[in-house]
């Protein structure tokens, strides 16, 4: 027993609201984020309805919904789930640590996130509605927009603060608190992705914070960081000092926002890695290659950002530079996908719910990634930029990509977190219908984009002649969105049902027969203060499945 496990008397506030236990904080993040995601999903359903039945909501409200759908899904939904929930909950367990390195900071980072979320949503209640200048918030439009935009910026500042505190925590925890024997190349791939993601967040978010400060100055103090001279608004020349550069905002924004997309995908790949290795009963193919690819990918992600700006009139030199770096960055992504696929060869594949989601991630991410290639080359980007092709591309990566990884992770780790497994039949129903409707919903977007249908059109493009051949897909997609919504019901019912069930007296702490420390050294759920009866020592790598001459088809990491 660890000698000084001393749990001070905790009252309701310090145990459940201002908890410093990484497990509870992880659950706080997860529950909050899933509710935000549900709200963001509903915004999209309304938008899809408006695109078919134009006039349901005003164009301004449609724009607000668009901004908030994107912002909520990315910053209040997906990242808090994969980093704040999965990262916080699993990281200390997987490295054999009693908690994160800075428990108070952890608590603060959740509450900053919550505060940021509430601030953002408050925009809906303000005159003029929530922010409506695109999630990218480009000036000059964003500078002259209604007050909802100011609130959006403040919300972003809180969220960025939360993210910075969280990344520092994850990096220090991973470097300093690894259990004895847990060397770098014995780390579960999930831990590598969390570490790299945190470095990306640490270094990429501050320029957006700086940009937010500058935009606040422009909106509140009448400065002209982003306002060019002689701008005419509503028929009148704007009386400001001018001399600013709207392009400057784009640089600072995309300097974050490109690495941000790798933040969206890397932890998802980490989740997939754990589930695939476990359900093929053999080690991942190319673990060391995958680690190097992830490191290289993170580095490259900082020097590709202007491929979002090919249409701003940049010089040829810059164009070449960013096109080349963008092509190079596709290499590590392909390596990662290939390693996953090669791992399947010769495996004893178990088709449980988490594995079904994990397997489907692979072709979905493949489609998302491949459709990015024409966008990364300046010439082919010209007709595709700001069309539905882009929306199809990135949604394929995040929706049937990352979100499927989130589902996979929830089904996989639910028994560890609660001591009760989710129902497999409901899980498989959830999977099959989500998979079908995701594809029915997002695939038509490519055809619409290739035909030239622009993004962010409140009427869905009905008023344009060149879209008449593909605008009918909007009806189809509206129905698909309803199907996708209904497909989530088995999932929600499953969770509520399972939570209400009574836990077995001695729940199986390793129902998936996994090798990593959270399964092999901690009970289900893990011990409230300290996670483990004793801090484990690690003797082997993370994926020792089907080792020849072993008693069972897996050897735990902490088995001598």
């Amino acid at each position, binding site marked *: 027993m660890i000698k000084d496990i001393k749990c001070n008397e905790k009252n309701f506030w310090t145990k459940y609201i201002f908890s410093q236990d990484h497990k509870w904080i992880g659950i706080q993040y997860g529950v909050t984020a899933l509710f935000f995601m549900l709200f963001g999903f509903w915004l999209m359903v309304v938008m899809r309805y408006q695109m078919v039945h134009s006039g349901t909501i005003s164009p301004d409200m449609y724009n607000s919904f668009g901004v908030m759908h994107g912002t909520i899904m990315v910053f209040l939904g997906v990242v808090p789930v994969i980093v704040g929930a999965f990262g916080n909950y699993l990281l200390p367990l997987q490295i054999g640590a009693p908690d994160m390195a800075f428990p108070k900071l952890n608590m603060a980072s959740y509450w900053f996130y919550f505060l940021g979320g509430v601030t953002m949503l408050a925009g809906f209640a303000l005159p003029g509605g929530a922010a409506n200048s695109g999630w990218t918030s480009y000036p000059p439009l964003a500078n002259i927009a209604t007050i909802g935009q100011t609130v959006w910026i403040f919300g972003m500042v809180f969220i960025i603060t939360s993210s910075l505190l969280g990344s520092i925590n994850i990096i220090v925890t991973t470097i300093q608190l690894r259990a004895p024997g847990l060397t770098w190349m014995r780390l579960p791939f999930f831990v590598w992705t969390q570490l790299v993601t945190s470095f990306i967040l640490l270094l990429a978010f501050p320029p957006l914070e700086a940009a937010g400060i500058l935009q606040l100055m422009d909106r509140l103090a009448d400065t002209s960081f982003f306002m060019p001279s*002689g701008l005419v608004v509503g028929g009148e020349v704007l009386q400001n000092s001018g001399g600013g550069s709207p392009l400057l905002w784009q*640089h600072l924004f995309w300097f974050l926002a490109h690495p941000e997309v790798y933040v969206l995908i890397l932890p998802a790949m980490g989740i997939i890695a754990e589930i695939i290795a476990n359900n093929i009963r053999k080690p991942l193919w190319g673990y060391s290659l995958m680690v190097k690819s992830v490191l290289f990918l993170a580095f490259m992600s900082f020097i590709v950002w202007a491929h979002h700006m090919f249409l701003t009139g940049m010089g040829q030199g810059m164009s070449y530079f960013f096109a080349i770096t963008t092509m190079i960055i596709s290499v590590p992504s392909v390596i990662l996908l290939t390693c996953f696929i090669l791992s399947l060869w010769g495996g004893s594949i178990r088709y449980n719910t988490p594995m079904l989601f994990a397997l489907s991630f692979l072709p979905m991410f493949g489609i998302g990634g491949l459709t990015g290639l024409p966008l990364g080359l300046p010439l082919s980007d010209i007709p595709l930029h700001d069309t539905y092709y882009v929306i199809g591309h990135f949604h394929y990566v995040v929706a049937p990509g990352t979100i499927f990884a989130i589902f996979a992770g929830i089904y996989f780790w639910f028994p560890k977190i609660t001591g009760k497994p989710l129902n497999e039949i409901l899980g498989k129903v959830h999977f099959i219908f989500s998979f079908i409707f995701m594809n029915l919903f997002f695939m038509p977007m490519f055809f619409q984009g290739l035909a030239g249908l622009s993004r962010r059109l409140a009427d869905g493009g009905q008023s344009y002649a060149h879209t008449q051949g593909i605008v009918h897909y909007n009806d189809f997609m509206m129905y698909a969105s309803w199907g996708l919504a209904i497909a989530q019901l088995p999932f929600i019912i499953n969770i509520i049902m399972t939570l209400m069930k009574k836990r077995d007296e001695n729940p199986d702490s390793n129902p998936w027969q996994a090798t990593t420390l959270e399964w092999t050294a901690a009970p289900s759920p893990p011990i409230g203060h300290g996670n483990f009866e004793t801090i484990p020592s690690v003797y082997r790598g993370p994926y020792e499945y089907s080792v020849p001459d072993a008693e069972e088809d897996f050897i735990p990491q902490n088995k001598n």
Partner: protein
Amino acid sequence: MSDDIKHHIPVYKNVFIALLILTACTVGASYIHFSYAWIGLLVGLLIASAKGYLVASQFMHLNNEKRFIYGVLTLTVVFFFVLLLMPLLWDENSVAHGNGAYENVSHEHSDEGHHHEGGH
């Protein structure tokens, strides 16, 4: 260990004096009219970097830290320069492509500043 610390005290005092001298240098250098604008920029940057190096290595004990800190910082410095240089190289009419950096800069030429009619 405490002797080790005691030996550092004179070092701190010397660094203090060096920093004050370098500050005087940088102010003095700003009054010199260099033949090209970019020389003035370079001199200013070099002096600031020298001061920064002294603070980082001596006051922040960077030269005593192990690899990890160096690694984090090197990474940050690389990205910092990327962020700094990109906007300069972006526009082919900008200073970094030689438009304006090679002119004789005179300090009397300061602008009228703010115009209310249409703004500058």
